[in-house]
């Protein structure tokens, strides 16, 4: 399916381009903008970003493949990114991961999407919130100091919600009742 930026997005792109002497610098910002609406970076997004910035397609594709926040496949309705690094790990991060793998019926896989397409689990490295571990992101929003029962409640609520993906770059608010446990 073709992807084109909307009129509003085109205006945002003008504002982005004005920040840099070289348009290439807008590569990552434009990819964030597109992923924010679509939920992932499709091949058509790569085409469109390359066209708008007048860059070789391979340049944009290369950039997409380098950065872990860009999803190259469609994800479930809610994207869960769990920190697996040391400080979180020793405070129970591995139990959070085990719980999620079981709940999402991922079998042997360490990450992936549950059969209903509701949740996509990924492991990520340190999220720079180590003092309040274990930490995970749901649709880009930090949830800190999590326990397995707390997470269970959160996901139960999310399952009953028709919440949209939160746009990366939007700084959007949490779709989940209960809210992020920041601080």
């Amino acid at each position, binding site marked *: 399916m073709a992807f084109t930026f909307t009129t509003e997005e085109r205006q945002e792109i003008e504002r982005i381009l004005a920040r840099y002497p070289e348009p290439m610098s807008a590569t990552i910002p434009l990819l*964030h903008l597109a992923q924010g609406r679509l939920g992932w970076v499709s091949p058509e997004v790569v085409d469109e970003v390359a066209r708008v910035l007048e860059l070789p397609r391979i340049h944009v594709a290369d*950039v997409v493949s380098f*950065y872990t926040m860009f999803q190259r496949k469609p994800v479930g309705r809610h994207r869960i990114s769990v920190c697996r*690094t040391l400080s979180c790990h*020793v405070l129970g991060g591995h139990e959070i991961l085990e719980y999620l793998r079981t709940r999402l019926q991922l079998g042997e896989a360490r990450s992936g999407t549950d059969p209903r397409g509701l949740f996509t689990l990924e492991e990520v490295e*340190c999220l720079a919130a180590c003092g*309040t571990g274990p930490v995970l992101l749901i649709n*880009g929003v930090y949830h800190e100091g999590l326990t397995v029962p707390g997470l269970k409640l959160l996901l139960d609520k999310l399952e009953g919600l028709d919440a949209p993906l939160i746009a990366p770059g939007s*700084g959007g608010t949490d779709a989940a009742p209960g809210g992020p446990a920041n601080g």
Partner: protein
Amino acid sequence: MAEFICFPALQSKTRAGLDAYLEDGGYQSLKTALDRLQPAEVAAEVKASGLRGRGGAGFPTGMKWGFLPKQTEKPVYLVCNADEGEPGTFKDRDLLRYAPHQLIEGMLLTCFAIGARIGYIYIRGEFLEEAAAVNRALDEARGAGLLGRDILGRGLDVDLHVHMGAGAYICGEETALLNSLEGRRGLPRTKPPFPAVVGLYGCPTIINNVETLAAVPPIVGHGADWYRALGTEKSPGTKLFSVSGHVERPGVYEVRLGTPFLQLLEEDCGGMKGGRRLKVLIPGGSSVPMLTAAEAATLKLDYESCLEHGTMLGSGAVIVLDETVSVPEVVRNLAHFYAHESCGQCTPCREGTHWMHTILERVLAGRGKSGDLDLLLDICQHVSFRTICALGDAATGPVKSGISKFRNEFEALVHA
């Protein structure tokens, strides 16, 4: 006790707005500098303060600024490194959330000192809330005539922009960050040339950590002597420490450099979690060699004491681990991190981090071979200082220190 001398906003954790910052004397240092000081005098004050880079390497800030070419036709750029990714580090996040105006004032003073008209704040992609806080502060500053053209009517022109990363620890390395900011993959560049000479878009560029830049307003406001007196002779000033792991009260603490580690642990962090015993201390982020409890007992939180103890202050990420941890498990966790984050352009780092992780996996799975520990140490030898950036060497820190200080725990696994 931690005092929050240079970073008072981290105490209240609520006063991020412009009004609150102005009430607390914010932007006074900038006004003083623009009214009374030449750019070179601001730079001289920072140099005299002995401030060292708080991003990890601890390079003297004033000296770094001095590497800019004296004469140049090209624009000079300032880049703030807010890619905070070193495992255990979360202090810059608090500065972005609670003290964005102090960072902006620090960047304006720095732009004035180095002659830059554009600054970028490179924020890790996951920090949406933090970026929103900085963008709000930038809008407020612009509205109050503190940003843009003719700042405060005193003829200074500076624009600052937020640039979001997209998930890659290596972009915290300064030249990888520059490539990322230019819209490329975040691959570190070979040095020299250093960014101060050939940096962003090929132009002279100063890259400093969030905490480094946020320390500039108090230094310019109170003077270099005041700042020096807060720390020790060789480690002047204060530093933020991010404490995580098995302590009662983890968090970000501002500490006078030279403070004993045990004081931070007992007085600020409320001691070990559940009263259990300290086993391992990683004092400066996951890249630095770990210390035993006995070594930690005599450690002071400053650059020299860390060096004397065979480790580094790094980014000030204090990871405290108690007797319940298995050191091989800790080392494997960190080896995974480096294997995952290596950008892959140097063979020793790409292969070395991969093999260290693979061998540790097999050791922990009980399939280790008798030569595995020496093999791991041998790999470290082949990675250290043979690569473009410091990630390769960093990856060897936990492996070498873990095996040499807790060898029996590894041997028990190999021979089991």
